[in-house]
């Protein structure tokens, strides 16, 4: 029936493609763009000649002086929060009030449906650009090329020592590149120095590979009991934790989807966790399993505690929504509703979506404990001092804001403490930082502006507080423009300090909080570098600026006062298609300098680094060595024309100079780097060969870190 209707509608929706969008025009437009992420002077052909997106980069250096209370910080207890239950967020002692809330949500949803077509301020959209971890899609297409950055390896230790020459070849084994040193993050590859643990690209199996001998040897394959797709693993002593998207109600798994009898599909709506005892590596035993409702979002592990977060969307349609409006956790095949006392409801929220946070102590076999908040988790940030969830909101039509929910750790789980809201949306988990006392967040906001005759933009308030449009601007040419902000919030999630309206017309590309400093890279045509002093948290001031060509997508503090940037090379006119690794001297925040620039192909080929999307691919080999993957086309001599090559480049910091040590070239055509690590003096790269007939093929390539030669290969999934 609906097929017929679809066809009829389709017939009545004929359009003629405007010249603007002809294939020729689009290809011409693309000619000004380099492959895989490099923009060079985009010439867009708009009928109204809109302002072109500006291209280039600059870095804001933001000193959080005064926000920082010395090295003893790490031991300090979080000050007790007096107001545990801010007015906006409530906890009920019974489900009845939650039912009431959902009845109201249902009513609102019907209202919107009935009087639809009005984009009113209360409508909410996830402004995540589809970049969710649970999306099968690649990272968002719309503008927000996700960029990695983050806080220092150890944010409580500002006086990290300079790496010594001796440590140069002091290889042990690799750990996942984490945002916070004491908070582990899930990855597809883990190692304990003797074995590699790999979540294979088929998403169905985990391989344990013995690397103690001279040859890699697969000793066991784990196939999770739950049907679904394995996402990430953790290794903790003799425990292997796997987290996956759980599928149910159907047999066949086809690209992660099930098929109903009637031919329609079902999505992977839930999340499973399975803990295996691997004291006998060749015979892993399932020890604990549980599942939580909602699609998997992210996880962290602190000590032996796993924190797993899913987003659970309550189906408001139909009459049985009240049965579904309390998220459930399945322990040992028994489903339990999360107790009312563990559910926080934001009174003003009108989104029927929960973040479910389940804590599992993998050491003691205790039952997992769940906490839920009526709010959708978009980014997760965790330190050992607190856990934060961000959710973006449409305040009214023009302004997008971000809600942040702060959780504290308890002995057995987490507890919601406070909620705050800041203007703008964030780039990723690295846009947030917390030192136990203050929470910092860098955002990009869209502002409505008017232009004067000289082209100067002035921010205007288009709406009054009641959401009515200001008549004053009815006949004024207004436009929207991006501005960037950094906010500092206290434990009550109240803003205590801020820098606003930075870098007009640009978006934040990467952020890195290092101790009392924040480094913020934005993207623009000209490339100033702002230095902003936040010594007085209530009165931050711009101190200076510096120009750098190109821009960094990922920033990593390598030593005290030295920052590595992985990004795109360029000139004053924009990027040139090549990638580069830079070393920034930020020891003097007033005069940051780029002291080493190492282009990947010397400007000869188009290049791209997946580190911008996945910071876990940045491999720290020792205190002064690291490896970064790139993907380049046609830059090394091979027999194949236009051959795409994956290459891991190994860099070494000597004194204050960065130099290249080796290049590990891997076939690139239809192969992708999934992860890497090292054990002793062997570097391992996990690759996935893709293509219809070899979908899911996973193989490991080993390199000798002394000779830099390939010394072995092992295929874990054919």
């Amino acid at each position, binding site marked *: 029936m609906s097929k017929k209707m679809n066809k009829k509608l*389709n017939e009545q*929706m004929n359009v003629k493609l405007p010249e*603007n969008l002809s294939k020729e025009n689009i290809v011409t437009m693309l000619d000004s763009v380099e492959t895989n992420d490099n923009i060079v002077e985009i010439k867009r052909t708009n009928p109204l000649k809109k302002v072109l997106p500006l291209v280039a980069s600059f870095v804001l250096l933001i000193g959080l002086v005064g926000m920082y209370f010395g090295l003893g910080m790490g031991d300090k207890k979080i000050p007790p929060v007096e107001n545990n239950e801010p007015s906006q967020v409530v906890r009920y002692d019974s489900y009845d009030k939650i039912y009431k809330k959902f009845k109201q949500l249902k009513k609102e949803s019907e209202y919107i449906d009935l009087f639809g077509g009005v984009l009113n301020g209360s409508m909410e959209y996830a402004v995540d650009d589809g970049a969710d971890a649970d999306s099968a899609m*690649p990272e968002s297409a719309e503008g927000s090329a996700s960029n990695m950055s983050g806080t220092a390896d150890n944010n409580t230790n500002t006086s990290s020592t300079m790496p010594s020459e001796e440590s140069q070849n002091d290889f042990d084994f690799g750990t996942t590149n984490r945002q916070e040193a004491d908070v582990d993050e899930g990855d597809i590859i883990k190692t304990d120095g003797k074995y590699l643990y790999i979540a294979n690209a088929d998403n169905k199996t985990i391989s344990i590979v013995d690397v103690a001998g001279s040859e890699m040897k697969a000793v066991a394959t784990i196939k999770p009991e739950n049907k679904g797709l394995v996402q990430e693993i953790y290794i903790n002593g003799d425990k292997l934790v796997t987290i996956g998207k759980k599928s149910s109600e159907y047999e066949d798994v086809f690209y992660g989807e099930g098929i109903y009898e009637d031919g329609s599909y079902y999505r992977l709506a839930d999340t499973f966790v399975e803990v295996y005892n691997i004291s006998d590596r060749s015979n892993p035993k399932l020890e604990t399993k549980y599942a939580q409702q909602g699609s998997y979002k992210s996880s962290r592990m602190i000590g032996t505690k796993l924190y797993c977060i899913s987003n659970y969307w309550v189906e408001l349609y139909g009459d049985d929504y009240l049965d579904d409006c309390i998220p459930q956790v399945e322990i040992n095949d028994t489903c339990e509703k999360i107790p009312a006392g563990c559910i926080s409801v934001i009174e003003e929220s009108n989104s029927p979506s929960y973040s479910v946070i389940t804590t599992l102590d993998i050491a003691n076999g205790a039952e997992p404990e769940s906490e839920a908040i009526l709010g959708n988790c978009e980014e997760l940030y965790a330190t050992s001092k607190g856990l934060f969830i961000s959710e973006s909101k449409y305040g009214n039509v023009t302004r997008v804001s971000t809600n942040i929910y702060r959780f504290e750790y308890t002995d057995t789980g987490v507890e919601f403490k406070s909620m705050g809201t800041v203007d703008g949306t964030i780039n990723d988990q690295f846009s947030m930082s917390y030192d136990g006392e203050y929470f910092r967040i860098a955002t990009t906001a869209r502002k409505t502006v008017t232009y004067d005759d000289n082209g100067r933009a002035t921010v205007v308030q288009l709406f009054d507080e009641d959401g009515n449009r200001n008549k004053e601007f009815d006949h004024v040419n207004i436009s929207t423009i991006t501005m960037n902000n950094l906010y500092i919030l206290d434990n009550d999630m109240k803003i205590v300090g801020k820098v606003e309206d930075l870098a007009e017309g640009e978006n934040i590309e990467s952020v890195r909080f290092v101790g009392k400093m924040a480094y913020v890279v934005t993207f623009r045509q000209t490339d100033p570098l702002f230095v902003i002093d936040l010594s007085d948290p209530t009165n931050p001031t711009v101190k200076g600026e510096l120009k750098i060509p190109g821009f960094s997508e990922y920033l990593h503090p390598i030593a005290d006062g030295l920052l590595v940037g992985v990004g795109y090379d360029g000139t004053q006119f924009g990027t040139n298609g090549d990638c580069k690794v830079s070393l920034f001297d930020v020891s003097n925040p007033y005069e940051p300098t780029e002291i080493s620039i190492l282009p990947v192909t010397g400007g000869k080929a188009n290049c791209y680094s997946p580190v911008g999307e996945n910071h876990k691919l940045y491999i720290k080999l020792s205190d002064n060595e690291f490896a970064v993957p790139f993907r380049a086309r046609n830059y090394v001599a091979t027999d194949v024309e236009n051959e795409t090559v994956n290459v891991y480049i190994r860099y070494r910091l000597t004194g204050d100079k960065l130099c290249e040590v080796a290049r590990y070239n891997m076939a690139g055509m239809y192969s992708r780097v999934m992860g890497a690590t090292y054990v002793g003096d062997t570097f391992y790269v996990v690759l996935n060969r893709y293509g219809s007939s070899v979908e899911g093929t996973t193989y490991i390539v080993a390199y000798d870190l002394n000779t830099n030669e390939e010394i072995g290969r092992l295929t874990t999934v054919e």
Partner: protein
Amino acid sequence: MKKEMKKLVRSAIDGDKSAFGTLYEIYSVDMYRFALSMCKNSFDAQDAVQETVLSVFKSLGGIKNPEKFKSYLFSALSNTCKKKLATVTLQSDFIDTGYVDAEIEFSIPVRDALSKLDDDSRQIIMLSVVGGFKSREIGEMLEIPANTVRTKQKRALNKMREELEL
């Protein structure tokens, strides 16, 4: 997905601009139709298509599964349109006057009926009618359960059916 399409997508992912151009050509009209229905005016729609093509082209390297190229494309487009709706609708007020949809050849009753749907429903209808996506795929793109998609779609179609007396 046909073998040739897969090949095209793979070539595009590996940086072949003409392969990407060909892919674009295949989907261009549908993309524009979708954008038109979402953005309500042709200026924003063209802008949205261009922006989407650019950003998809830039992030091709991130596409894990060539089979999902089309849904990736439309998912990106629908995100772009949503952003435009939220940020540009206001300007459209004056852009619309004197610039009203010169290229649109949607039948007027269909346009009217579409405009009476809320943005979410319209998006679902357009993804299904123009994009030809299944409810499962739409659910994945919009991150809502397929059931919700089906319910919304059914309601919206009923509503349109009444409007259009089909």
